[in-house]
């Protein structure tokens, strides 16, 4: 069922560094690409999202870069902080239905 491939599986970054997580999708009908952040014991929470007519979206320290021709998108976390340590999921959906999630990236930011 997986149509979204996410890498890396885990990532360790020093405080103040840049965290980069990549995703690739298969279905060209997808038109909504969100990133979710999940802390242990909690449900995923929306971090930032992009539509395919935009190549980049920035919200604070979080940026999504989108490459429609390559069917890839990535999350960049600038100035990474220990509080950013969590599991991050990319996702994709068509018309907001049947959201397909990547397998997740466990980010650890070392102080």
């Amino acid at each position, binding site marked *: 069922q997986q149509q979204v491939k996410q890498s890396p599986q885990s990532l360790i970054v020093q405080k103040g560094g840049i965290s980069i997580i990549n995703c690739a999708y298969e279905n060209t009908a997808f038109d909504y690409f*969100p990133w979710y952040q999940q802390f242990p014991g909690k449900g995923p929470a929306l971090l930032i999202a992009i539509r395919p007519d935009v190549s980049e979206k920035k919200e604070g320290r979080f940026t999504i870069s989108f490459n429609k021709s390559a069917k890839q998108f990535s999350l960049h976390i600038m100035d990474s902080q220990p509080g950013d340590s969590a599991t991050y999921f990319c996702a994709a959906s068509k018309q*907001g239905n049947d959201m397909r999630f990547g397998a997740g990236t466990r980010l650890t930011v070392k102080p």
Partner: protein
Amino acid sequence: DAGVTQSPTHLIKTRGQHVTLRCSPISGHKSVSWYQQVLGQGPQFIFQYYEKEERGRGNFPDRFSARQFPNYSSELNVNALLLGDSALYLCASSLFGAGANVLTFGAGSRLTVL
């Protein structure tokens, strides 16, 4: 302001039993979706309901069923439980059934099947 609430938070069942999980969406949200998250994996789509009608179904067996009530709350039922059904079951609510659909997730119901 209450978010998405799910109950129970944890439960243990044995193989062959059935389970009912409940979800109350954010006030004003008319769409509820259910996801299964196996440990170490991303959530997998099970069902979406909007205005009490099923709008989408993932690749799950018929042992899984759901419904949405007039107050937009929802139940997920799983019959004839298997060990592989052990997972965190997430409910998400959204304003709409389509479009740039911002999903707000609950904390989940953790099901363990022995």
